């Protein structure tokens, strides 16, 4: 048995450590552990803030899925205060959310995940002519020709197509060769490039993918221009409780949004469509096809057993989330849980998530049996507590082997992570694009989705199209490492269409003369109830996100988030078992324990976002340490 540690796990957001015990003979992972190794206490910082500012503070949870937390936050506050946002604001928020998803998925695939699959070193032995031929073949073969129901087409032809000439690939190869020869590898340094997994792909695929890595590094910035137009910047665009701050006028050149500004958004939307259909999906299917052929359908773990979604994209404005009207206005009704998908879409069990479930402590809660917190309730740390009543007291216990400031091995039997363990009916769930696809596919196949929307139909068609390419049924390929990565690419394609869809809805609404972007009726705190609470839901790029806010006397009295990466990366629960990262690692074969590329690959297939996942909950009456620092003492702290 070999115990391995990977810390830091890179090409993710934030600080993550994983450990695993691997049987060296069989390559089987016997046990594994996932630990969020930092927390920043943001929810405590939310206390006593003006709820109209909450989005700005809490958006700083994460700069990778920037916008996600701002959107969930304004939704939570609007739910609490009963504010209905104007149509234009809903469309603009949806365009921003979808453009985040498109950009975030592309960055994840090419810049965070790709180097687990492809190697610049392997690209050196590629034949540039054969690579050009391969590029053309990939473009011709690996397409999923699906589009949204959009009448407003503004692009004459697809720009930014992949280049497929030998000289182009020769140029890329020469550059890579010179970097490798120089010995100063920069971002390519110190990786396990000799790992046998890199031999699965022919050199030409490596070269093609490395070229696209570089191209997408420069292109991704253009995909979030909707954030810059509507929110002023990216990362961290600006929002407004009650709508959006970007007023619209067709008569003012100085206006935040006018025809010229909308044309910028339109261009970004067209670009996103082209990049996902000409680069991302063909590359993913070419590489994934080879992995599938090699029988690499492991790493599913919890996805086979249970996935959760909240649903996404309100079509038009709705009353509130808590009264269930959010769920009844969705473009994609993945609100619910699917269990046992690995047995087949027809045998899986679907449970719908309804408005009344949200405040029910039997449905949602978090336990801290293995997290560095302690509960003051008499039921102990293992008893899950609902986020509206959340409480936490940090309790750092250090590692099993090593010292508190120099870890060797963490304590899987005790506490080992700054992430809490979220539970649905006391059970673990995986969230993410894969969960969304599993839920919609299951609902559709079991006729539990009356009057399917175009987006839901497209999701089913996408899954069926990929099943044909891979020649494997969905219940086999979807709940795997490969399926998690493939579902993200499909989600990217879908969201590119959703951007177009809501852009057209925005234009059509503006045609009616409705220019309103903000509902300011309940802006003044004097119009608010003395006490209120609300929840904001959003299917972030990484999965189901929820913010829970209590407002008292015009100020935030309790603010809590349950975040996609908390669902996925959480530590185990003694009753519910391992979380999604841990289960996925246990479900993965490792060839060389000293070079556990397969483990970091399966972890990265979740697109980890640790800053999102770690947070401190509000403890009423907790004494806060006052820390004074002496600037010349080299970092010593004096506690008062």
């Amino acid at each position: 048995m070999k115990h391995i540690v990977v810390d830091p796990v890179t090409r993710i957001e934030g600080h993550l450590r994983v450990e695993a015990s691997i049987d060296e003979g069989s390559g089987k992972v016997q046990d594994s552990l996932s630990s969020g190794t930092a927390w920043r206490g943001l929810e405590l910082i939310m206390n006593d803030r003006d709820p109209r500012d909450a989005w700005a503070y809490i958006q700083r949870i994460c700069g990778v899925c920037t916008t996600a937390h701002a959107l969930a936050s304004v939704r939570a506050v609007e739910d609490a205060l009963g504010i209905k946002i104007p149509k234009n604001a809903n469309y603009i928020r949806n365009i921003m959310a979808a453009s985040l998803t498109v950009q975030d998925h592309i960055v994840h695939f090419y810049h965070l995940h790709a180097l687990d699959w492809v190697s610049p070193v392997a690209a050196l032995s590629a034949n540039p002519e054969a690579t050009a031929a391969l590029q053309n073949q990939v473009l011709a073969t690996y397409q999923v020709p699906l589009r949204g129901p959009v009448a407003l087409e503004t692009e004459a032809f697809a720009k930014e197509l992949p280049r497929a000439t030998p000289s182009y690939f020769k140029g890329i190869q020469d550059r890579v060769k010179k970097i490798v020869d120089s010995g100063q590898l920069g971002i390519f340094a110190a990786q396990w490039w000799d790992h046998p997994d890199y031999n699965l792909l022919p050199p030409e695929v490596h070269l093609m993918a490395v070229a696209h890595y570089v191209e997408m590094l420069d292109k991704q910035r253009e995909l979030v221009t909707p954030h810059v137009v509507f929110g002023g910047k990216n990362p961290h665009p600006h929002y407004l409780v009650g709508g959006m701050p970007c007023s619209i006028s067709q008569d003012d050149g100085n206006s935040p949004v006018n025809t010229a500004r909308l044309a910028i958004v339109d261009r970004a939307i067209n670009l996103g469509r082209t990049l996902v259909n000409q680069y991302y999906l063909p590359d993913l299917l070419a590489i994934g096809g080879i992995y599938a052929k090699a029988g690499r359908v492991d790493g599913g773990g919890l996805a086979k057993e249970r996935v959760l979604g909240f649903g996404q994209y309100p079509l038009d404005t709705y009353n509130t989330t808590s009264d269930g009207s959010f769920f009844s206005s969705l473009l994609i009704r993945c609100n619910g849980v699917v269990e046992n998908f690995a047995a087949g879409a027809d045998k899986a069990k679907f449970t719908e998530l309804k408005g009344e479930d949200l405040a029910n402590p039997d449905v949602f809660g978090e336990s801290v049996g293995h997290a560095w917190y302690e509960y003051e309730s008499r039921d102990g740390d293992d008893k899950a507590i609902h986020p509206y009543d959340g409480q936490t007291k940090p309790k750092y216990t250090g590692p099993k082997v090593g010292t508190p400031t120099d870890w060797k091995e963490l304590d899987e039997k005790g506490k080992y992570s700054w992430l809490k363990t979220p539970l649905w009916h006391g059970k673990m769930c995986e969230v993410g694009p894969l969960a969304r696809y599993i839920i919609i596919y299951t609902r559709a196949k079991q006729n539990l989705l009356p009057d399917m929307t175009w987006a839901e139909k497209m999701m089913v068609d996408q899954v069926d199209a990929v099943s044909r390419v891979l020649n494997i049924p969905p219940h086999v390929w979807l709940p795997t490492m490969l399926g998690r990565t493939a579902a993200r690419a499909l989600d990217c394609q879908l969201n590119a269409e959703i951007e177009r869809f809501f852009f057209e809805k925005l234009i059509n609404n503006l045609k009616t003369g409705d220019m309103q972007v903000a509902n300011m009726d309940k802006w003044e705190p004097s119009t608010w109830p003395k006490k209120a609470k609300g929840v904001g839901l959003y299917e972030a790029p990484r999965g189901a996100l929820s913010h829970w806010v209590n407002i008292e006397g015009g100020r935030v009295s309790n603010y809590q988030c349950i975040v996609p990466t908390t669902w996925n990366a959480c530590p185990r629960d003694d009753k519910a078992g391992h979380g999604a990262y841990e289960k996925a690692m246990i479900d993965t074969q490792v060839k060389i324990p000293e070079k556990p590329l397969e483990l970091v690959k399966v972890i990265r297939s979740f697109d980890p976002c640790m800053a999102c996942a770690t947070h401190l909950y509000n403890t009423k009456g907790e004494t806060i340490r006052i820390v004074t620092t002496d600037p010349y003492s080299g970092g010593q702290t004096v506690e008062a």
Partner: protein
Amino acid sequence: MFISFVTIKGGKNVEKRETMWEAYLRRGFSRRTFLKGCVALTSLMGLSTDMLDKVVEAAETKPLPVVIWMHGHECTGCDESFIRSASPLASDLVLTNIALEYDHLLSAACGEPFEQHLEETVKKYYGQYILAVEGAVSTTNNGTYCMSGGKPFVDNLQHVAKGAAAIIAYGSCAAYGGIQAAKPNPTGSAGISHYVGTKQVINVPGCPPIPEVMTGVVMHVALFGKLPTLDSDGRPRQFYGNRIHDTCYRRPFFDAGMFADHFDDAGAKAGWCLYKLGCRGPETYNSCGNLRWWQGMSYPIQSGAPCIGCANANFWDSGACFSERLPKYGPLPDVDIIGAGLAAASVVGVAAHGALSVVQRHERDKAEAKENEGKEQVAGK
């Protein structure tokens, strides 16, 4: 008085590193491409075209800087902003202009081999590398609220900082502590400058900073082998020398007294001044007004959102809702004292270098006030 032009010296026994020109040669670019790159950089860095010769000379003769990028208590928004840069483009930057040897976001490697590579890089380029830090330092409970590689971030930072030629604090977290240092600061977070000994820290605040400001600072070092000129707060003057209010395209509306009174009212639709909606432009030093985001496309004010002052120290605890005016500055007539007042408040504790700066800002504000009153024209700098 300004901390300007601190030369980065190479040790004697260090292997020769290649220049930007050599890198272009090595990668098969033409001289023309190289010169085009220099022209882009010249304008990027706010230099006049007659500086082009110097930029070309610098790019030909100065070695590629090695960059180590570390993460403390952060959200990775600064990393993301960095790769949104349009000039230079991210690929050109990380593959040609700098040697980015350690970065949690982009580096291929992870775990032990990655940490070993960090050690080797620190040894090999001791005294020469640029350390870029994103995120705050947490010190409560011996720094165990921010662990990386099984060790507290604060320890890792202090270790790597020792051998750094220059240290860049990217973002308001690394510069001032940022969001996690907001009240009640449960993790004891602070900016990095207190934890890197006597080393000069280049503060590049903003939440996040503008992409081209982030890359511009590195490019300045890459091209000139020197730190850019800094102000008393350690910020590069070329990017933080103006208040957003001074460079805002809505400034004429302020001067004319044309304001949005509420979000989405007629004034907001027409793009009038957001001062009454709490805009922190008058007290914030940043390039949002002149560089803007996405090469001039927008910035929060242009998109109808009042500036929240994200490049200011402790802007999270300003004491007022972001859509309200800061109470201590009162109503409209006092606007011209706001910048000077805030500048004075922000330099407490760094008085040695601060005094001159405050005087300078005061002079500028006085000049501005005069201009507003129309008494006399004051020549710009």
